[in-house]
């Protein structure tokens, strides 16, 4: 289904468009009937496993016990079924509406123009059943923490995602130059990610995807083993075997079991999330897909990148490996998603430096490198990290690197800078040094130009606000149609 929206089409509200060709028009839709199974899925599996364990352990012959367990499962499924029955969604007038709730009706509106990104997420059970969940990321308030459409058929989900994104782009073209707030959210930085923003009609065309990167599975496994989690598990194994050999008691292993399980879970989670990471450039942004059991597909729209970070741990450097992460502005993650929310999005979980540099070129218009070292007296203040301290920049980006054993290089676009801080501690004052930090939205990325000479830091603090303002203005001009 192509369903192209003509490039010069009016706003979606003025003429009815087929949203999902094949399932009908913009009327109310239900989610897929197997939704309760997927939603209850993980809990259901856990429940069944626990019950089975009980059953085996106690060797029940009492049938009533089993019946009561079955009743519990049936009630859980029935609740999910009712929730499915009263949930419906609709796209109309450029707004996605999701209504749910039996007793307390909950109706959410998502103006398509405010959608930042749409992810397609598949849990393990959903993959077996061929279903997928759509997650909408919306700008601004974290209380309205985005919407979920769970579950749809995978093909429907992908089609709907494409069409919603196409609508969101066409709806977000700023109607007037004064409306900077609304317009800026959809601003493509010229040439930043996609090769041109393309006409809206070209959106959603998968043929236009240009593959950029694909992680190698063996390298990912090796890299995770060589990271901190790997080092810890190695230490645990060494300690364990030492204890067992010296005391001859295998019972000691039991006390390490919780630790081992925790580490294994963390390693597994990372491997599962980053396995088969693929990045491709498409007209509507960078497409990022990953996952082994639970797969995720998301689109990082151009002009949404708040910061880029290159991480080079000690052991990885020996192999010439590194990790490239981006920070994208969005609502705070809900509690249940905290695990994935804490990490930055890893575009390259592990890759060669050349791959990382190519990806940085794809993300940024220019790629300044941190080439200016701090003055020599900084060695006294930061003897262990002096070798990695450096900063640089041009009129679009500031880049800073630091770290003791693990080098972290951070690029921050000047147009995204939220505040600039100058900090001077007592030792720095004695040595004539100062640090300048640039903050961008979120809590994870800060460009820290550590231990510059006091004169340079002063010039930075005095000069950067003007440069950031000019960068903002330039980005704002690029946002206006025909401008």
């Amino acid at each position: 289904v192509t369903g192209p929206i003509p490039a010069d089409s009016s706003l979606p509200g003025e003429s009815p468009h087929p949203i999902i060709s094949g399932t009908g028009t913009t009327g109310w839709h239900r989610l897929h009937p197997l939704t309760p199974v997927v939603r209850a899925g993980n809990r259901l599996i856990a429940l069944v496993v626990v019950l089975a364990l009980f059953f085996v352990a106690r060797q029940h012959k009492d049938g009533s016990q089993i019946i009561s367990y079955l009743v519990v499962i049936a009630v859980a499924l029935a609740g999910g079924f009712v929730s499915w029955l009263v949930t419906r969604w609709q796209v109309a007038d450029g707004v996605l509406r999701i209504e749910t709730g039996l007793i307390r009706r909950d109706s959410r509106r998502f103006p398509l123009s405010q959608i930042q990104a749409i992810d397609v997420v598949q849990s393990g059970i959903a993959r077996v059943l061929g279903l997928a969940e759509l997650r909408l990321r919306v700008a601004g308030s974290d209380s309205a923490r985005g919407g979920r459409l769970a579950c749809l058929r995978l093909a429907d989900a992908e089609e709907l995602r494409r069409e919603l994104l196409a609508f969101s782009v066409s709806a977000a073209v700023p109607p007037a130059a004064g409306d900077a707030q609304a317009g800026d959210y959809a601003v493509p930085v010229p040439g930043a990610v996609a090769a041109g923003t393309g006409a809206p009609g070209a959106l959603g065309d998968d043929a236009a995807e240009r593959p950029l990167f694909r992680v190698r599975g063996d390298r990912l496994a090796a890299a995770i083993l060589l990271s901190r989690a790997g080092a810890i598990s190695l230490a645990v194994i060494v300690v364990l075997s030492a204890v067992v050999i010296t005391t001859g008691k295998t019972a000691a292993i039991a006390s390490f079991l919780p630790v081992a399980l925790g580490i294994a879970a963390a390693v597994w989670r990372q491997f599962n999330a980053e396995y088969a990471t693929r990045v491709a450039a498409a007209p509507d942004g960078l497409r990022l897909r990953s996952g082994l059991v639970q797969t995720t597909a998301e689109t990082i729209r151009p002009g949404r990148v708040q910061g880029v970070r290159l991480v080079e741990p000690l052991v990885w450097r020996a192999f010439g490996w590194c990790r490239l992460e981006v920070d994208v502005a969005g609502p705070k993650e809900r509690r249940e998603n905290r695990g994935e929310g804490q990490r930055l999005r890893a575009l390259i979980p592990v890759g060669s430096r050349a791959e990382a540099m190519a990806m940085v070129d794809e993300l940024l218009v220019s790629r300044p490198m941190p080439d200016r070292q701090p003055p020599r007296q900084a060695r006294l203040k930061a003897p262990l990290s002096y070798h990695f301290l450096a900063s640089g920049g041009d009129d679009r980006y500031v880049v800073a690197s630091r770290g003791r054993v693990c080098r972290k290089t951070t690029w921050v676009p000047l147009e995204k800078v939220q505040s600039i801080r100058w900090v001077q501690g007592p030792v720095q004052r004695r040595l004539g040094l100062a640090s300048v930090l640039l903050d961008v939205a979120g809590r994870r990325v800060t460009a820290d130009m550590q231990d510059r000479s006091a004169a340079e830091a002063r010039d930075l603090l005095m000069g950067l606000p003007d440069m950031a303002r000019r960068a903002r203005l330039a980005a704002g001009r690029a946002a206006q149609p025909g401008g």
Partner: protein
Amino acid sequence: VSDATPGPQAGPGRQDRPDADITWQRPSPRLLRVRRIEVGLVTVPAALVGGLAGAGASAVVGVVVAAAVVVAGLLAERFLARRVASWGFAERNEDLMVRRGVLVQRQSVIPYGRMQFIDVTAGPVERSQGLATLRMHTAAAASDARIPGLDTAVAAKLRDQLAALGESQAAGL
């Protein structure tokens, strides 16, 4: 980034401080009184509790503990005047500059267009002195900018002024 090459022997001099040619506005002098009351409110109960707990062992220990707490409070009081005097803010054309700190000195620049919302808060001690604290929030969690010890009326006026400036210069994320 600035191309200015720093003098290799740029020593720790007044001219390298970034606040040299800025006219700073200061918090109200009553802020010092607020901070003194706050230190007193912590020190006196702490000295009493510590003294009583120490007196459980012996009277001498109790007196020593109480005296130590009081001395610590007095030392903090010595430091307060400098800390309070270090606060300053300057309204520039495009941004607000805030500075603070004695031992670790900080100076922040927040563009008006980046301010998402602005709070005026006042604790009980501040309120008793007719003062309030102005907090500016941006989308970045790390940019912590506040101005304590403003006259309540001044704080309200500044808040409205900053909000208006922020609205007129607002920029998207």
